[in-house]
């Protein structure tokens, strides 16, 4: 009962704080000058390039594309195409000109697919599927999408999406993964990788030197594979977690925080144990990174 009241309070707080905020974002975007408005097919393709400045995308239930924003100088903005595909963005300035800058908001059919590329600008998208690429900007995706592919060289990546599959590659940036995506392939080079994924059924998580942290109980029947060279792999599981866990490190250490846990096999720097019945199949490998397992 107490839990129910707490949940209701949370929902009310969310309605008060988040929804008006979202509305404000939408209103603010629509107050910006209109750059393009045209009819679009439901499953059209939209290609966006913005070298300096932010790109915000919102999937909506209309058969049209609307682009609002400010581009300076205005002549650098371009948009061309037809109902099945549009290419738009901000042209880079020549070497003798001052650099072009544009912050743009794009509303497009929910089933459309995008290919978005920025250099320094952030990418925010809600209910939009496709490919998102940035060199130094941050990528934040939420809502639902048919597929997500993200590449970021230095920027952070935050994914709170429900999609059938998701692939993300990051360099030095941190990757945060939430949401309900059953098929996931995420890697970083030196950035941290944080996952809360009780809905993940097939997951591959890789880093070279960034720490990987996984919180929450893996889904029953899930197959999760973690690989790290020198970063740590840290698990925080509820005591009710179930599955078979194979942890191996070459020169690192394995720290077991489950005191009641008795491994079914244990060699030097390799531990295998099963908890509960059925559950997930989790494999962890590191070269010199520490593997930690502890209860919530």
């Amino acid at each position: 009962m107490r839990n129910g009241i707490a949940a209701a309070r949370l929902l009310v707080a969310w309605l008060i704080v988040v929804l008006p905020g979202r509305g404000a974002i939408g209103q603010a975007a629509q107050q910006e000058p209109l750059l393009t408005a045209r009819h679009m097919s439901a499953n059209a393709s939209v290609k966006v390039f913005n070298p300096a400045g932010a790109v915000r995308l919102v999937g909506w239930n209309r058969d049209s594309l609307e682009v609002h924003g400010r581009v300076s100088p205005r002549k650098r903005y371009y948009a061309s195409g037809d109902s099945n595909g549009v290419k738009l963005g901000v042209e880079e300035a020549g070497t003798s000109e001052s650099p072009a800058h544009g912050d743009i908001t794009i509303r497009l059919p929910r089933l459309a697919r995008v290919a978005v590329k920025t250099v320094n600008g952030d990418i925010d998208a809600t209910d939009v599927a496709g490919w998102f690429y940035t060199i130094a900007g941050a990528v934040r995706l939420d809502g639902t999408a048919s597929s997500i592919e993200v590449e970021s060289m230095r920027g952070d990546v935050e994914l709170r999406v429900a999609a059938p599959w998701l692939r993300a590659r990051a360099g030095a940036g941190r990757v945060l993964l939430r949401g309900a995506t059953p098929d996931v392939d995420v890697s970083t080079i030196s950035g941290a990788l944080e996952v809360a994924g009780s809905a993940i059924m097939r997951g591959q998580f890789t880093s070279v030197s960034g720490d990987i942290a996984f919180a929450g109980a893996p889904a029953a029947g899930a197959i999760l594979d973690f690989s790290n060279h020198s970063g740590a792999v840290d698990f925080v599981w509820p005591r009710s977690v179930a599955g078979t866990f194979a942890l191996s490190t070459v020169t690192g250490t394995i720290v077991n925080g489950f005191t009641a846990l008795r491994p079914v096999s244990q060699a030097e720097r390799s531990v295998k144990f099963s908890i509960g019945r059925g559950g997930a199949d989790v494999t962890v490998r590191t070269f010199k990174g520490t593997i930690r397992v502890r209860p919530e």
Partner: protein
Amino acid sequence: MTTPPDPHLTEAQRQDAAERALASGDTAIQRHLERCESCAADVARLASLIAGARAPRADGEVPADLWPAIQDRIERSKVVALPDTGGSPAVRASRPLRTRRAVLWIGAAAALAFFVLLRLAGRVDLTSGRRTAPELAITSLVDSSHAYQEQARILFNRLSLERSLLRPGALAAIEHDLHIVDAAIAELDAAVATDPNNPVLRRLLASSYREKVDILKRIGNAE
């Protein structure tokens, strides 16, 4: 009882004879050539071709008349003379069957040879009739590491070519990431050298190469 006709020399025997003619060899083939005009003429043509190809040219160029003769020989070798059957449709229909049988025999022989090779390499467990799982895993991981390594080499060459086209920020990020991955690969390579059958090391190495390939693939987008 009549003596069976002396069969013509095979292509390999003719080529051998042509080589030996230049080195004045004397074999059973040579005796056949003395009896058979057709083979002797062909060997003489071959010897002339070889001599032409070997002759030193002052200008370093291949003689213009050399290729037509070689081409003609290749084209003739593609034509297989079939025994005269008098045009009987029944006999014509049986030819594909014979061809199929020959293909089946060749296939069976190849499969047997492959199996023997695997057996010699110690990769087949005859008691179970299957490759053992750990060996299979290590072999395929070695293969995947090599595949990634080759792909990484090609992509790295591309980076060298396109370096000047990349944005400075992107180039710095790629070089930073490559430095981290290369250091990891070097550590893993050294570890694999001392413990080559460790599947964890092999998988980590393959994973690091995959990361390197992924970084290098981003070059095209970073321009």
